[in-house]
């Protein structure tokens, strides 16, 4: 894991070698501000994950249980540990407020069908995990499941400030490091690249 929040230093280190110092000195203030501005929004985990602002506690339990089937917990964090339920809660009170009521209707429809299939069980979240999996498998082509998959992925990987991706655990899971500046080599296959070898009959010009 690379350190974050030090984009100014990263920027200097990464560009210092390729950009003339006079140019850098002339351009630095504006560029640094732009770069840090863009990056700063990524770095801050400002979400409050202590309460729900849109979902009821029972609704949140089911959303959390569905998300945890889509990206399960285990040796590494899953949807539950990354706070996907808080993402689903907060976007429907925030950036996707206009879609909140529709989401609730579809969630209630899901809960109603689940209750019919499993009489005597309180709600989806109360089912044994194997039963939860089987029920979702049964309805994995439904629009509501597609919507929950979409929301789970976004909750896992969108900026922490939207409510999910707690502590950037979603980004850690997929190996994404939120640094603003990178330099070559980027991966294991380009570090020993010998350079482009021209083809016979061609004349490379630079």
């Amino acid at each position, binding site marked *: 894991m690379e350190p974050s929040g030090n984009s100014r230093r990263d*920027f200097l280190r*990464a*560009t210092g070698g*390729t*950009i*003339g110092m006079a*140019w850098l000195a002339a351009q630095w203030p*504006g*560029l640094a*501000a*732009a*770069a840090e*501005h*863009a*990056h700063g*929004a*990524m770095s801050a985990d400002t979400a409050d994950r202590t309460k729900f602002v849109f979902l009821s506690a029972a609704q949140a339990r089911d959303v959390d249980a569905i998300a945890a*089937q*889509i*990206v*399960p917990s*285990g040796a*590494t964090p*899953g949807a539950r540990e990354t706070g996907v339920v808080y993402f689903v809660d907060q976007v429907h009170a925030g*950036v996707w407020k206009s879609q909140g009521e529709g989401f609730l209707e579809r969630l209630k429809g899901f809960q109603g069908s689940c209750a019919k299939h499993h009489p005597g069980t309180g709600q989806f979240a109360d089912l044994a995990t194997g039963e939860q999996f089987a029920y*979702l498998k049964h309805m994995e082509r439904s629009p509501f499941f597609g919507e929950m*998959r*979409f929301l789970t*992925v*976004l909750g896992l*990987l*969108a*900026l922490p400030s*939207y409510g999910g991706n707690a502590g950037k655990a979603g*980004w850690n*899971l*997929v*190996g*994404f490091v*939120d640094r*603003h*500046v*990178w330099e*070559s*080599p*980027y*991966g*294991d*296959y*380009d570090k020993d*690249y010998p350079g*482009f070898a*021209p*083809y016979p*009959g*061609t*004349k*490379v*010009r*630079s």
Partner: protein
Amino acid sequence: MSGRVFKPTDTVDFVVVGSGAAGGVMARELSQAGFDVLVLEQGPRYTAADFRHDELDYWFNGHLSNKLDTNPQTFRKTANDVAQRVEGFPAAWYAPTVGGSSTHFTANFWRFHESDFKERSLLGEIPGTTFADWPIDYAELEPYYTKVEWEIGVSGLAGASPFDPPRSRPYPMPPLPVKSSGVLLERGARKLGLHPFPAPMAIASAPYRGRAACAHCGFCMGFGCEMQAKSSTLYNMIPEAEATGRCEIRPLSYVSRVETNAAGRATGVAYFDKDRKEHFQKARAVVLSANGAETARLLLMSANSKFPDGLANSSGMVGRNLMYNTYNEVHAVYERALNEYKSVQVTRIVHDFYEHDPKRGFYGGGGLDGRIGPLPIAWALLAPPPERSWGAEFKALLEAMPRAMIVAAHGTSLPLETNRVDLDPALKDAWGLPAMRITYKDHPDDVKFAGFLQDRGVEIMEAAGAQQVWKAPSGESTGGPHLLGTCRMGNDPKTSVVDNHHRTHDIPNLFICDGSSLVTSGRGQPTMTIQALAFRAGEHIAGFAKRGEI
């Protein structure tokens, strides 16, 4: 932000509608030639400091994209279908902002080849299509391709591709550093006897003309570049136009009509300002560079008693021959880390399948590139095959993301009169103007070629030693950012909308230059050619104006 501010009573020499890849070039060329130019841009003006690395906002909330709630679109496959309102991604996807789609583009900058301009002569008629030669050839456009590379700013390695058309100058900047996806694409392709080469990209690999070099942050496709390294017109043509003191860029100005007089000449344009108040801007000449979808819509919305089928539409070709280019993906996972989220999207490409080959049995040509394309969210949503799209296997795939790459296959679209942009008969936008309706169905050869090229991508990844390779599902095109062909160039006023200098055949002081001008689709990377056309058109239009020929 600087430049001229025109008064409402001023008659400008040129009003340019749109400030994107073509409009930005037109603004600079015409103002540097000494003319007063007003550019009307429907979207806002951002600066580098406004751009964010927020995948949800830019990819799933349409931060830079056209908004379907205020600017709705409808889509149908054929004229026999009822067009349905488009949800999610627009069918005609662009960036309504100063700089236009050059602000959010990926920046692949391939020149068209010599054959692209004369394929109809080379291959003959393709029944059921409007496949045609261009009224200009590659040699005519070559100096302007060079101008794009030097004045817009393109990084690349001249002569690296054995298939490259002739060029008068090398690139002004070296190629961007190769990524692991580029190394693996090159490794696999060379093993198969193909000729991968460094991708030409409109991204500064070194400080260039007052702009910073790329910092390799990875947020190119769909994002604005806060480093100003991406060669958007926002950062080169627009400020250079304003620096002449003769050009005003007026954002949040949504043009609703081009007006004409009894003599059949354009008199100016009507537009809504940010408060939805309507204005009329008088102009001696009008240039439309609003993109291949909005330019056609605007001409059709401007119908009047003298031009009842829309302006410049005596041929009936306005809005027709829409071409999206085909796009298919191959996914591959390797043993070790690639970290494809870093740096620019593409560093190596393959042009061995660029030319049509009659042995394949169907028309088509294209190019392949190695990339991850979108960032983590889009990859997680789109890459997994259905059987691994949730549960433990999905999680395992998510954990493999650092080892994953995409091969993107970009192919031809044949021009068909039935594929078109027109006005929806019922749906209106938030200003009460007719919504855009798109009718589009791929030609069968386009689908066949796209599948052929995707299979070549699979072979390359297997040859490169991938542990897993799978094809993304390839369906028929339902939209995209390449909006081409809807006001095609041609010498014959009966079959084309603009002449070989981008003057409309019907209205002597109305010019069009953007993706709509293209006669054929090229191989999937049109912006380089759109900008070369714009430099050429700007020079000719300025010449006409100076000689009193408008």
